[in-house]
């Protein structure tokens, strides 16, 4: 059951990215190009997603636990630290360079494979670098 839900969540999320054309880096770079030939259409993606997301959290706040799990796994940290700012800044530079954030980048493996293999290979390497660096510091 969990496997089916997880798979379809990924599938529908990916479909949402594709319908809204977030999977197309030309559209994403047009959205980020606010001082040039700005294409504001992706505001509606985030707007639509956040409005429904907020309704989801309103329902969540009235329930003691999820339907299929015994507790909530929602992040609870509220502190603004250096890693949050630096990480977000680096991510934004990478996103602006290619127009790929992680979800659309993964879909590039099939949508635009010549680009996708380079981007996803480096995406995994970057994620792995953090993982092993962190692992060593903690161990």
């Amino acid at each position, binding site marked *: 059951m969990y*496997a089916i*839900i*997880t798979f379809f969540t*990924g*599938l*529908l*999320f*990916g*479909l*949402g990215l*594709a*319908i*809204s*054309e977030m*999977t*197309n880096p*030309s559209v994403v770079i047009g959205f*980020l190009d606010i001082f*040039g030939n700005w294409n504001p*259409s992706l505001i*509606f*993606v*985030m707007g*639509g*997603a956040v409005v*429904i*997301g*907020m*309704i*989801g959290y309103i329902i969540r706040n009235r329930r003691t636990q*999820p339907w299929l*799990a015994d507790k909530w*796994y*929602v992040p609870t940290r*509220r502190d603004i630290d250096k*890693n*949050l700012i630096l*990480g*977000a800044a*680096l*991510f*934004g530079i990478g*996103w*602006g*360079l*290619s127009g790929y*954030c*992680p*979800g659309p980048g*993964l879909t590039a493996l099939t*949508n*635009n494979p010549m*680009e996708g293999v*380079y*981007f996803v290979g480096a*995406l*995994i390497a*970057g*994620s792995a670098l*953090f993982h092993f660096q962190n692992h060593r510091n903690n161990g």
Partner: protein
Amino acid sequence: MDAFLMPLIGGLLIGLTTAAYLLLTGKVVGISGILAQALFSKDRFLPFLFVIGLIIGGSAYGILVEPSQPFPEMRSPLILIISGLLVGYGTRLGSGCTSGHGVCGISRLSPRSLIATAVFMSTAIITVLLTK
């Protein structure tokens, strides 16, 4: 077709999906975190299934419908690699990406996510300004 209708429908679908996943499983949808789990956690089966679903869903529609703008021609592998490294490392260091901070975090008005989204939107806009 109204240029804003499809993005809105896509956004509503993303919102419905993340809200349903939250209410069913108690978890947020953060692609960078799910990818890291699929690669490095002990329980990688479910996150791996999610990634496979994402790739299928993100490709299926593109096969059926002509994009409003063409996909870019193959760009420099060096740019794509630098971009991938920054996105891969930055999203882990900053605990999230467009989905985890930008959608799920803003939906619950998390101060960390509001700040992170403002920062990555700003550096992305500056990067496009400098590279175009």
